[in-house]
């Protein structure tokens, strides 16, 4: 039987989900938003948030129905001994794919922005070592470290946005509806799977002492992420203009580079990069932990730690597979996101099965 250990509180849950999601903002996601919505990128962000929160509801319902149980236990209970582990395996694979692509994206980002001549391997090895160590020490260690790091990350990004405000030209945010309402809404819903990466909450749903905490963690975390994405989109379009912003794969980095408040307050982007490295490492650590725990549960292993080492060795070559940066971007946008929707269907399916077969403890009203 699986050894699930550790407990997290509501506040820690919120910070974890928020950290995992918002570290995506340091990558290319704001660019995707502006690409779809033009000057109305911030509207896309809003739609994405609402969509994400909606798609999270089955996940939360599932956790609340089976409090204190890990994902593999839930799926076995709801879907049977054969189908259950299979579904868990699917989720684990998606988490793994997300981890690999995140690793590659972050590595590329850091290489292009601050370490130009470095080959990707040392950067990846370092990141994987950090994530490995963090996951080894357990979920509680990760969540506590995130609690301390998150104010730094959020504060740093907020500072970047604040200092960019003098450059914002509000006329660049017009035309108001961007490319029209329909493209905005469809684009937002397409990217709602970005927000639904909060499905990672499934992997540590067992750690909440009170299952209602899972609900507030997931929803509040996604909401905060959405607000952050909106703010970033607004400032991005206001500073660069829609055409440039939609071609900008490192939006926040470029924003930080442009900070020029007089002679002294400039050239600060390298310092802010440090905060983003923290965000990247937190995301990788959480994803690695979630993937390992889920995979271990699916395969029926008694403990996740031995799997951790093999998995870390495996993901580095996998991350080096995409040939170049653009392939990574495309893989992320065109494959991982739609698959994310598929992955979101699984908890919904499990929940339905649990309701139909009348499994699960708490059946209190939502």
């Amino acid at each position: 039987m699986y050894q699930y250990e550790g407990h997290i509180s509501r506040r820690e849950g919120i910070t974890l989900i928020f950290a995992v999601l918002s570290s995506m903002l340091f990558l290319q996601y704001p660019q995707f938003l502006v690409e779809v919505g033009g000057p109305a990128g911030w509207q896309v962000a809003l739609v994405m948030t609402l969509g994400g929160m909606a798609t999270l509801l089955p996940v939360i319902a599932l956790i609340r129905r089976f409090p204190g149980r890990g994902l593999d236990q839930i799926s076995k209970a709801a879907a049977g001994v054969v189908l259950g582990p299979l579904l868990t395996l699917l989720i684990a694979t998606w988490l793994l794919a997300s981890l690999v692509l995140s690793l590659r994206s972050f590595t590329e980002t850091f290489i292009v922005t601050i370490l130009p001549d470095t080959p990707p391997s040392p950067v990846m090895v370092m990141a994987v070592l950090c994530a490995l160590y963090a996951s080894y020490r357990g979920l509680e260690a990760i969540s506590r470290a995130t609690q301390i790091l998150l104010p730094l990350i959020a504060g740093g990004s907020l500072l970047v946005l604040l200092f960019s405000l003098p450059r914002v030209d509000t006329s660049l945010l017009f035309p108001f509806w961007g490319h029209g309402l329909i493209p905005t809404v469809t684009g937002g819903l397409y990217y709602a799977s970005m927000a639904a990466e909060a499905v990672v909450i499934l992997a540590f749903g067992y750690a909440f002492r009170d299952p209602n905490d899972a609900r507030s963690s997931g929803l509040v975390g996604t909401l905060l992420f959405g607000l952050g994405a909106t703010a970033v989109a607004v400032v991005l379009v206001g500073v660069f203009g829609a055409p440039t912003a939609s071609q900008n794969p490192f939006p926040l980095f470029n924003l930080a580079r442009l900070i020029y408040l007089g002679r002294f307050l400039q050239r600060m982007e390298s310092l802010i990069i440090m905060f983003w490295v923290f965000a990247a490492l937190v995301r990788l650590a959480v994803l690695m932990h979630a993937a390992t725990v889920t995979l271990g549960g699916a395969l029926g292993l008694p403990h996740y730690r031995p799997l951790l080492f093999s998995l870390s060795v495996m993901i580095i070559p996998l991350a080096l597979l995409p040939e170049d940066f653009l392939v990574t971007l495309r893989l992320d946008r065109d494959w991982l996101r739609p698959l994310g929707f598929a992955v979101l269907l699984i908890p919904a399916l499990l929940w339905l099965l649990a309701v139909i077969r009348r499994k699960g403890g708490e059946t209190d009203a939502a």
Partner: protein
Amino acid sequence: MRHKRKVGFLLLLLLLTLSGCWNKIEIEENAFVLAIGVDKGEQDLYRITMAMARPEKLAGKEGGGGGGGEEKPLVLSTIEAPSLTGALSMLNGYIGRNVTLQHAKALFVSEELARDGNLQFLDEVIRYRETRQTIFLVVTKQDASQFLEGMKPELGKNPMRYIEQLTYNYRRTAMLPAASQISDFVSQVNVNYSQPLSYYAALVEEEESESGGGKAADQSEASHTAGELPRQGGSNVEMIGGAAFKQQKMVGTLSGEEIRHYLLLHDAFHQAVATFKDPKEPESSVSVRLSRKRPSDLWVDVSGSRPRLSAAISLEGEILGVQSGVDYSEPEQQAALEASIEQQIEDSIRTLIKRTQEWESDIVGFGRHAVPQFPTVEAWETYDWPSKYPKAEVQVDVRFTLRRFGLTLSPLQLRQ
């Protein structure tokens, strides 16, 4: 067994150091380029001048230089190359250090090249990691290599700091554009709501004593552009006015006074000293310090076949000098003066806008105020603002209030 494990772990660690640190470079192994100059090339696409810093000359301790005190603080080198990075790699061939653009502060482009519209190397500026988008773009009247060679600050050692400080003056004199960084340039060029404007500078030979040829009749001192100031002495760089672009191509220069009006319309005006013709005595002038009273209001009416541009500007000012002897502190005289100044400013603004319409370049940015009226990007693009702009009607309304009169109310009466 434990011993073997420890040794193995240590070996792994050592492996990390063996592979080397790829990006690590000692700070003194770098040659920092402070300014880049781009001209039209003869043998190749561009002629690029890089001005590199000599650290001990620029920032070393006083007297620590020892001999060779006649060395210039910047090392200049001009190369024919198809691109900036091409020039960099060529430079690395004969400069003993690693040439890097990390601290480049300004990009000087010769007017010849700008008028040709051959600014494709700007893509490199955005794409290449070392260059920052906060560097200034300055169009120089002469060749950029000549400019960089001749540039000599009188106060201070560092020429680039001198240039930087020149750009801060816009707040007090309003004779320079508010900002002309690559980021503004690029974002405006890409979006097409308005056209970019950059700094304009010129080098003046010391021996010449300009008499401001041809402008003697015009007593407005700010109507000179760079290179034409009637002066002698001081450093040989002049940076007044701006260069207007249409997309990538330079289409004209603006004088200092025109820049002032541009800033008024652009709502980036702080204060300036302006000289107006005295309404009662057309031969004399009145000096006024203008400052902004309320933000300028621009709006555009896109209904109809021709867009209608309207601007409402409100200013206040302080009289600095009256040469005609007329006492403007009396209410009617004051009103007359205010009306006259308003009229003069309106005329100048209309002239400026007409000039930009001739160039077909909306540098003032009326397009930015037209955009909110379009619901989607497609609608805006169908409207095609850049073609509609030259046909637009202009209406300007200036309000000017005299606030203060200086230390004395009635002027100096110089009796003959």
